[in-house]
């Protein structure tokens, strides 16, 4: 296990915000991906200990990226970060082995708690 995180979101502002909170919580952000395809590629090359994954993205959505990554690495720890209206997709993600989900817009504190708890476990 490592404390390296990959941030996947097509919105830069989201990536910045998550990066900021992750870094404050002691995580090293090893990469940022803006599409599902990129996420899969970066996951294989970087082998991060944790991934935050948006759902609605161009070029392969978060669900497909999750499915692909989990197939490549059954121990992949992926947390979905998504808007409230993605309930069905989130349910699918849970079945696909996402370790958690965070609803956008998120509280800083909530995400911080997440990173801190995950940090303790690794």
């Amino acid at each position, binding site marked *: 296990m490592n404390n390296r995180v990959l941030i996947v979101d097509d919105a830069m502002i989201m990536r910045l915000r998550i990066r900021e909170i992750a870094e404050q919580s002691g995580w090293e952000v090893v990469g940022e991906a803006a599409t599902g395809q990129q996420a899969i590629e970066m996951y294989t090359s970087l082998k991060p200990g944790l991934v935050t994954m948006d759902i609605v993205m161009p070029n392969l959505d978060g669900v497909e990226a999750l499915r692909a990554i989990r197939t490549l690495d059954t121990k992949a720890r992926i947390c979905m970060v998504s808007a*409230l209206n993605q309930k069905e997709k989130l*349910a699918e993600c*849970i079945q696909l082995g996402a370790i958690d*989900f965070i609803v956008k817009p998120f509280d800083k504190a909530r*995400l911080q708690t997440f990173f801190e*708890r995950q940090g303790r476990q690794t």
Partner: protein
Amino acid sequence: MSDEFDFSSGMPSDEMAQYLQMFVDETSEQLDALVDVLLVLETNPSSHSDLNESFRLIHSIKGAAAMMGLDSITLLTHHLENYFERLRSGIQHLDRPMMQLILKCVDFLRESTEKLRDGEPLRSSPDLLDELMNRENSQEVPAAAENTLDIQGSTEIAKPSEPIAVAESLSEQLVEKRLIIYFDRNIELPELKAELILTRVRELAEITRLSPAMQDLASVVELRTLQIWVRTIRSDAELRAVAEVVGVELLEIDAIDSESSGLHATEVHATDAVDVAPTLVAPVLPSEVSMPPVAVPPETRPTEPVASVEAPTHTTEGQIKVVETVRVDIQRLDKLMNLAGELVVNRARFVQIAHQMSETFKKSGLLGSLRDLSDQLQESLLEDSKTAAITHDQVVKQERRLELQMGINTLQEQLQVLELGRRSFLQLNEAIDQFSRVSDGLQRGVLDTRMVPVGPLFNRFKRTVRDISGELNKSVNLVIHGEKTELDKRMIDELGDPLVHLVRNAIDHGLESEVVRKSRGKPEAGTLTLEAVHSGNNVLIYIRDDGGGINVDKIKKRVLERGIATPSELENMTDHEISQFIWSPGFSTAEVVSDISGRGVGMDIVKTRIRELSGTIEVHSVFGQGTTFVIRLPLTLAIIRSLLFQLNEGMFAAPIENVREIVSVKNRDIISVHGRNSIEVRGEFIPLIDIEDVFDWHKTRYAYGVNPSDVAANETDHSSVIILSTINKKMGLSVSALRGCENLVVKSLDENFTHIQGLAGASILGDGSVCLLLDIVSCIDLAHERLRDRHRVNRKRIESVS
């Protein structure tokens, strides 16, 4: 009990400091809200939505305090939360002594947040804790009922010990555990979170039982707790790792072994089992309908009515939360405000300079006349060269002409440069206009950021009124209007104390006892109104009671006792004038000095405090019908839109709100009413006041070498009179010249110099000169005082002559 909750998300102390301010602010707001709800509960102790709201508030204070590592607050709120948990579930009822205890706890919490704000160490609250715990223990008596609940709650497994025995036979390490998951308030998609946790827990353990049941989870609207009974070989840490997902506030894991299950599980379990049902605003569980009569009322009551009652509260809460906010240290805003103020001063300076430059660059101004001159020179030079014959000695002259021509050429070139300058100047003017717009916008923007509604301030008085009226045994209805009216944050902070004083006074001295009220044909309960109204650049705050009004006779008596005025002085005063003596230092008419409204040191201090906020306070009273205090505050302390005028040699300003109109008065139209100069404006007589009636002006004027008689001689037969008005007073002030309107950045004289009665502050004008801002209310008062004194002297003179 405190060992039971382990807030694993504790924060290192250095990081804590960063969040302390936020915690203090948030907690104070939550405490305010809590008091509001508690007061509602006092009249309606079984209101389920209010019990829930109280629980929620206490719970979130507890959560935040635990995160901050503030043990004394966490501990107290934990016990309070327990208590409200039992109230919610109907096990206990809210009685008066308990309410007093809860309010005491709130006071303790408030005091603690104040201490945190001031950087003082927190003290613990052993007395309150003891008292709370005593009540917890003493009321935990109906053990029979709890046992019944316990059995009813665990219908799925009749006896927990049986499966364990089976499990033990299968594997030594297989342990039965219970996960109690407390969710954050307002978590999104709770049913999905539950599903997530179950999915993940299932990877590590066999789930034997669930509360709430699976089929109910899908339809929950609000999920507070989820209990999962599992059989597993995994460690607590492993379970925690998967179950502690985002949105889980607290996770407790109990090991259920056959020995302790009886005792330990019952104690916690009983409350929890009850807890789950009321928090789920969902269809009633079939098993719960068949509960024994003891438990039915609290269990079934919440389901339907609560859903309908709570729905609107949720939506309004949702709407409020849409607005994203940032908490900012008020000192930063002060700094920004000051800078915006400086910018306004600078802008005025630019405007002034541009105005001066416009003389130079005007088409018909300097540039034009220089151009004319150059043209004329050129013309006469041409004439000269045409007419004169070229003789020998005129070769020299020709040379001169050439020189002159070159000079004219240079002049014309320079004029071109000047013309360019003129164009730049026009651009500069445009830029200044633009700058003015931006600085106006900035100023408004900065002001806006400082504005907060008076609602929370007013709502705090619900508690004050409750306490005081209880102590004095008077029943008082507090009516609040205009709570959305906004006021500068700093003023809201400063207003608390004076308002408390006025409210106390109103209840203590203003409102009569119930017996007296009855005999006067008034409703037994007095009404106290707090109202905020927006009026131009001011906010007016009314503190109104329907009590006995100011007793003028009592005031007269006291005034004479204290030697504040003489009987003959009082004789000439109207009731209104006499009631103004309440503002005198050391004045008090309370026959019994009570703890509540202090010892007669109040009203003058109230007035001083309001004045420090650049505000004014006035009192109106109708004997037998009530008293109204009106506080007028500027929207902001820093920038005041004012009318500028000249009085003799000095520049003065009056806040534009106080200027009713400007009239031109012929000297022969000034009439004398009761020995006072007055003017008639559309049938209304308004006292005309000279600045000499307000200030000791003579000395300054002589120092400047101006003789008053000269000024009088110079006066035309017209003079401009500004009609200044306050809430109930008017006066005309004759001025030497009017100088227009400006936004003045007001600097306090009190801070930099000394307080001068009649002046609200000073400001620097665009040309760098100083302008004094009049405090209209005290100016009018001063003028009245002076005139009264003069009147008295005159009368004495007449008396001695006759």
